[in-house]
């Protein structure tokens, strides 16, 4: 056999292939793409809509990463700088291959008196892209966007300098901007916990403040000093108590609509024996001024209007006007309208619409209320409807109805220690819309479609210590920089759902769900560590985005059947665990899967899998699975209390070949409004 040809061919192949060592991979910079085609980060839905409606320009950036194959767009150069500095960012995305920022060198810019940053839409001006390292940034000018300070990039240094001369600030290069922190990013776990404590303390102060209203002296007793309730309210001087003794009072029978309290009064009954009966039209009690208290009464006969189309307010040009009318003006047992610091306490309401409506009422407190709503959510409305009000809703019970607590644009409110009894017909236990920095803590939800749901990309929400059982989904938090911790989700279809970005999920206990965690964001920026996953049919599903690494600082999560041993004695298993993988996901329930999972070849092959997560198929890998549960007592309680119900749930479980398909059918079956589109 003539070896010449074979040797020559092999030699030639190797020689030519060796040229691959000379080629500089990734030398050419990818060209910018339209911003609409990127995955965007960095601004809340409310801020985005607001910016659009008010014509406020937001400088943008887009980044091509070495380890993430989608182009990531950022609203605001400041948010890009903060995200680049976030711990774990480089692990998941690699290094930026190219960064482009808005170029305003040819744009006609102006800054309004309030500091809002605008761009003229004259045809002669336009906004382009410039590579970040070639750009000159004006930092610290008076230009603002709804998301905060505007860092304004220019390709031309002289234009940047003249902008700075006119509007203040200094001209910086990219390296200087990048190393800055603008406080737009996510906090650490510790900062979040401090935030949780601060929110509780704030709520405690509001509750103490409002509860003081119950100490007002009694000036009028209905039936003794005044014949009717309206007459008593009319007669009572401000800052006194109107006592309503046991008995049934037909409130609207006096003919002039609902009972309106327009001075700071306390309306106090004798508990459930004081029954205020409406005539089925409108709200039963309405407070239209601050410092009103309604306590210890029972209310029925509420109207059945969800959205009052005949209201006219002075908010006509607000971007959320339609939402305000659609949600904030329905009928309720008690309505607080511009009633700052008011109190609704120990009131029980039977209602076909809302239990309590709180609109434009800062620091109001709803405490110990019981709302009995409709059996099916489509027939009812909210237990407490909070609109544009930072309030406290606590210690209350919501049976049936649409949502237990619905919040619209009520940044910083606190919803804690409530009980939502859905009985299979409720939609959401707690439903946040356009609400940032809120605390939802220690609520117990059963039988709802979703226990706690945060929609519309808000920032900084704290969802802590809630228990959700027997619902379709436990906790579903969208938005950014939020804290989802210490929640217990048991026996739901989905335990936790995470469309969120740059959020922290820690110390949650996820037990006996069909699917423990649904990782549904395209962009893998959540930090998911120290959670307990026990007895779920499937640990995790992920249908979009690249491989997620759920390990930080050498610690991951507890997966009950994860194989491997803790040889090092540091509480961490030696073998990485892939809860979404074909073998590891079956370890707990398929006989033999555990044997296969311990195969050295499988271990060897996956040893390097976490190296470039951004270029991997979607899924989850935990490089340091925990050997023991993080909260063993809670896990035992959650699993134990549920023992008898397992078989029933299993029978109704949806086979989950395709997470999306399942979601779609479920949505169709129960008529849940699509995410983000509720307003």
């Amino acid at each position: 056999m003539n070896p010449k040809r074979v040797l020559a061919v092999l030699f030639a192949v190797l020689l030519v292939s060796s040229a691959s060592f000379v080629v500089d991979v990734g030398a050419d910079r990818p060209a910018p793409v339209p911003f609409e085609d990127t995955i965007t980060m960095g601004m809340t839905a409310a801020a985005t809509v607001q910016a659009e409606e008010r014509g406020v320009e937001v400088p943008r950036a887009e980044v091509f990463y070495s380890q993430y194959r989608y182009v990531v767009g950022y609203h605001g150069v400041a948010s890009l700088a903060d995200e680049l500095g976030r711990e774990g960012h480089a692990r998941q995305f690699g290094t930026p291959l190219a960064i482009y920022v808005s170029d305003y060198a040819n744009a006609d810019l102006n800054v309004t008196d309030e500091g809002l940053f605008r761009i003229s839409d004259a045809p002669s001006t336009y906004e382009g892209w410039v590579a970040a390292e070639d750009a000159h940034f004006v930092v610290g000018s008076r230009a603002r966007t709804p998301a905060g300070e505007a860092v304004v990039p220019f390709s031309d240094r002289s234009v940047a300098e003249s902008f700075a001369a006119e509007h203040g600030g200094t001209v910086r290069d990219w390296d200087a901007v990048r190393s800055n922190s603008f406080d737009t990013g996510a906090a650490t776990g510790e900062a979040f916990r401090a935030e949780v404590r601060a929110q509780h303390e704030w709520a405690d102060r509001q509750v103490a403040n409002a509860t003081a209203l119950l100490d007002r002296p009694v000036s009028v007793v209905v039936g003794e000093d005044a014949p009717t309730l309206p007459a008593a309210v009319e007669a009572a001087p401000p800052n006194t108590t109107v006592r309503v003794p046991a008995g049934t009072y037909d409130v609207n029978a006096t003919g002039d609509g609902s009972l309106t309290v327009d001075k700071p009064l306390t309306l106090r009954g004798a508990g459930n024996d004081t029954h205020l009966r409406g005539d089925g039209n409108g709200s039963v009690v309405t407070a239209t001024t601050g410092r009103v208290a309604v306590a210890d009464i029972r209310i029925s006969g509420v109207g059945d209007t969800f959205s009052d189309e005949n209201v006219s307010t002075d908010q006509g040009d607000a971007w959320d006007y339609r939402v305000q009318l659609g949600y904030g003006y329905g009928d309720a047992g008690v309505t607080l309208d511009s009633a700052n610091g008011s109190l609704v306490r120990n009131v029980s309401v039977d209602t076909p619409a809302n239990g309590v409506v709180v609109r434009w009422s800062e620091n109001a407190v709803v405490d110990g209320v019981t709302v009995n709503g409709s059996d099916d959510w489509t027939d009812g409305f909210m237990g407490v409807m909070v609109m544009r009000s930072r309030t406290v809703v606590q210690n209350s019970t919501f049976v049936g109805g649409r949502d237990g607590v619905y919040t619209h644009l009520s940044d910083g409110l606190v919803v804690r220690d409530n009980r939502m009894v859905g009985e299979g017909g409720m939609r959401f236990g707690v439903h946040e819309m356009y609400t940032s920095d809120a605390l939802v803590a220690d609520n117990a939800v059963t039988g709802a479609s979703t226990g706690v749901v945060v929609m519309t990309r808000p920032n900084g929400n704290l969802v802590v210590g809630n228990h959700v059982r027997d619902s379709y989904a436990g906790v579903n938090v969208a938005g950014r920089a939020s804290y989802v911790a210490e929640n217990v989700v048991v026996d739901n279809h989905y335990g936790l759902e995470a469309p969120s970005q740059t959020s922290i999920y820690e110390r949650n206990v996820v037990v006996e769900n069909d699917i423990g965690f649904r990782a549904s964001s395209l962009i893998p920026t959540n930090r998911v560590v120290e959670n307990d996953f026990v007895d779920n049919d499937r640990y995790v599903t992920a249908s979009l985005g690249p491989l997620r690494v759920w390990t930080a600082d050498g610690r991951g999560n507890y997966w009950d059947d994860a194989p491997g041993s803790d040889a090092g004695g540091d509480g961490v298993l030696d073998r990485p665990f892939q809860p979404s993988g074909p073998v590891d996901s079956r370890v707990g329930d398929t006989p033999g899967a555990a044997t296969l999972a311990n195969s050295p070849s499988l271990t060897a092959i996956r040893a390097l899998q976490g190296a470039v997560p951004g270029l991997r198929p979607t899924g989850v890998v935990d490089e340091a699975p925990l050997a023991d549960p993080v909260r063993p007592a809670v896990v035992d309680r959650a699993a134990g209390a549920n023992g008898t119900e397992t078989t029933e749930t299993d029978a109704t479980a949806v086979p989950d070949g395709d997470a999306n398909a399942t979601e779609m059918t479920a949505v169709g079956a129960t008529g849940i409004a699509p995410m983000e589109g509720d307003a």
Partner: protein
Amino acid sequence: MNRESVDRLLAVAGRELATVVRTRAFLALAGGFAVVVAALAWTAGAVGYVPLVLDLLTPVEVLVPALALAFGYRTVLGDAERGELDVIRTYPVSRATYVLGAYLGRAAALLVAVIVPLSAVALLVPLFGGVGTTVVASHAASDSPVLYLRFVVLTAAFALVVMAAAMAVSTNARSSRAGVAVAVTLGVALVVGFDAGIVAGLVGGVVPEGALELALGLSPNSAFRGLVLESVVGGVAGAPSTSPVPSVLGLLAWLAGALAVATVTVWSGERR
């Protein structure tokens, strides 16, 4: 080397190639390797070239030495056992020409068996890879077929080194049984032994931390792995970079040393 000895070299190489092609066991081994590589690549769901390299690196590190030793350990041994070596020694062939020629022939066959399946599975990436959506703008990130090509070249070089070691086994073993035993021992040493030794040395303080890079160069598997991680994954994962020089020198030393040992030990004394 003059033209005559080149012709002799090629004649020996041709003879070895013919032997390999005619031996069904080699075809079965090569086929087995190809099937394993294909299966691994397929089940890994390769969405990019760099992940594919990472998926194949460990299996290749184990399988290529096995394949090379299987292809090579009987090269000279077989000739000696059948008495053909005595015949060859009557020809005007120097020890170096015989060993090098035999090496070239076997190595050529091995390279075909290694390069073809590795190159073939790379096609899975353009065929089935990508990012799974067209809604969002995507790009190649740091991924590139060039990086995969580097992996193939490095694997070929690694195969050549282990094949040289197999030659040394085949010239030293006195019987088939001894040959198998030595080949298996060498295989285990390559895959486990040398690295375990370095770990032990590091623990015992024999290998100082500063010399770790050099020590890794002495183990062909570590040298190969280091070069792949450095030249293929290094730019992507951003791990602390190691110098490729000790690894390259280590592999070259193994290649030259093993061939020299084989040449010296293939036969001794005057031509009979």
